[in-house]
């Protein structure tokens, strides 16, 4: 298990919120990463570029941060079958639900959308249930 880091969690969360507000103020868009991710490829032509620019920043920002603060910790313990099926379930599920942790969890909840409150509740409920069961089943 990792250590509780309240200060960096609050600071990082506030930056995520700031980014969502920047995108709304500049482009009038919701900062939903899964929509960005598939929209950069599948969206109507004129809507692709800004999404690609956001994604480039999303990859480049952490790299820039790493130059000053060192390489961030990255520890991924899931098995390959879990990675493949889990990844596909997330990609498909996020599109079916029209949003993920960022689009529903941060932006939608901030807009007081009932759909987003429901989605975030299910994300957390199922995510916690699955993670806890896997741990208790002896995976960790």
């Amino acid at each position: 298990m990792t250590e509780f880091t309240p200060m960096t969690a609050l600071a990082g969360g506030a930056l995520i919120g700031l980014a969502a507000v920047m995108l709304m103020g500049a482009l009038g868009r919701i900062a939903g990463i899964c929509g960005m991710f598939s929209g950069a490829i599948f969206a109507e032509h004129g809507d692709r570029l800004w999404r690609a620019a956001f994604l480039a920043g999303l990859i480049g920002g952490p790299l820039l941060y790493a130059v000053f603060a060192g390489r961030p910790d990255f520890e991924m313990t899931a098995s390959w079958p879990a990675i493949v099926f889990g990844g596909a379930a997330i990609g498909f599920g996020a599109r079916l639900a029209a949003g993920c942790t960022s689009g529903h969890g941060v932006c939608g909840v901030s807009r007081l959308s009932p759909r987003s409150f429901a989605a975030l509740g299910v994300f957390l409920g199922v995510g916690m249930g699955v993670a806890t069961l896997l741990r208790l089943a002896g995976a960790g």
Partner: protein
Amino acid sequence: MFRLISAAMAGAVFGIGLTVAQLTNPAKILSFLTLVEGWDGSLGLALAAAIAVTAIGYRLVWMRERPIFARAFPPPDSGEVNARLMLGAGLFGLGWGAVGLCPGPAIAALGFGGPELLGFVAAMFGGAAGYELLERGSLLTSAT
């Protein structure tokens, strides 16, 4: 051009925020989702801070007539809570709990994650592409 620069800046701030909160680390996310002794509530605090800043910030920018580089703000999400939303959110939660990654952290970590992360992002893309194909074939419209 200004649209692209502001989108890239927002993306960079988003990614730096995830990194500062250590949410680019799957182990950190799983420590929040796994409800056992030694539970780490950090992700919950990050989510709460993000929602608080967004909720206030949105209302401030909505006082403008329109966004700086666009015609209008989006209308409220008027859809209803339906089976499609619940099923999608359930699938999402399943993968999130099994791997400890969701789309934002996965992409933000691309610069320093390993082959497992690349495999995860490819699978995620495959799932999203599968959805697009089904939707274009309108196989999903009858299910709503």
